[in-house]
């Protein structure tokens, strides 16, 4: 019944860590997943981090805060962070917030059809 569940999983490819979110990112779930992500990042300190958002069904401004907070953390230890394959509704709010001026948004070939579509 309660739907604001967000799941996070991690994949490492060489020096890059892909953090894949699925489900709903709001204030409730952001608080829930934040500590786990930060522990993982601080332990492994990957030089490149991708927040993969293609499986995100809902995101509000708390998600913006979550992304900016992780960006700042990775930046502080000298790494780089980009957003990867945001779902259309996520892309819409990222662009609304002007996030692309601060954090790169990347599209992998497998998700290229989503590029630029917004909503």
């Amino acid at each position, binding site marked *: *019944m309660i739907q604001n569940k967000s799941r996070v999983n991690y994949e490492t490819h060489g020096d890059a860590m892909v953090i894949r979110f699925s489900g709903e990112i709001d204030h409730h779930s952001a608080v829930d997943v934040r500590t786990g992500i930060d522990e993982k990042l601080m332990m492994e300190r990957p030089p490149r981090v991708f927040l993969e958002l293609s499986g995100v069904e809902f995101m*509000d*401004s708390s998600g*913006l805060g979550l992304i900016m907070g992780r960006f700042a953390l990775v930046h502080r230890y000298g790494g780089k962070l980009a957003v990867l394959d945001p779902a259309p509704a996520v892309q819409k709010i990222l662009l609304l917030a002007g996030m692309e001026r601060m954090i790169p948004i990347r599209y992998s070939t497998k998700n290229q059809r989503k590029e630029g579509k917004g*909503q």
Partner: protein
Amino acid sequence: MTRTRVDFSAAVENEMEMTLPALSVNEGMARAAVAAFCAQLNPTAVELADLKCAVSEAVTNCIVHAYRESAGDIRLNVKLCEGRLVQVEIRDRGCGIPDVRQAREPLFTTDAQGERSGMGFTVMESFCDSVKVHSRVGKGTTVTLLKRLHR
């Protein structure tokens, strides 16, 4: 429940009211309930997603700011009006906003520590047709979202 009218006197065709405790777990519940109630107007997927996001912003603000993560009630009132107009009122009895104009500015936040982006009101404004904020310090805040559905 007495049927009231929306500000610009469009007749109310259906109405829902719910009160939820200010718990973050209810953020998903609140936006899902509003979306389920509005589904009878056959909104587009994008309209529904936008409305859910705007409601989520207002409800989260009650939990994070109005009650500062302590106990309190959030009252939601949804009116479906003639002309495919949806009005959602989100009311708290929390701390209130001293300067509403400043609060509505993009990037303004009183909670930078909490990783807030200060974009909540901007999201509400761009995903709805109008956003009204009525607030009194020490009394609480009412946010009124209006969205007209097309087709």
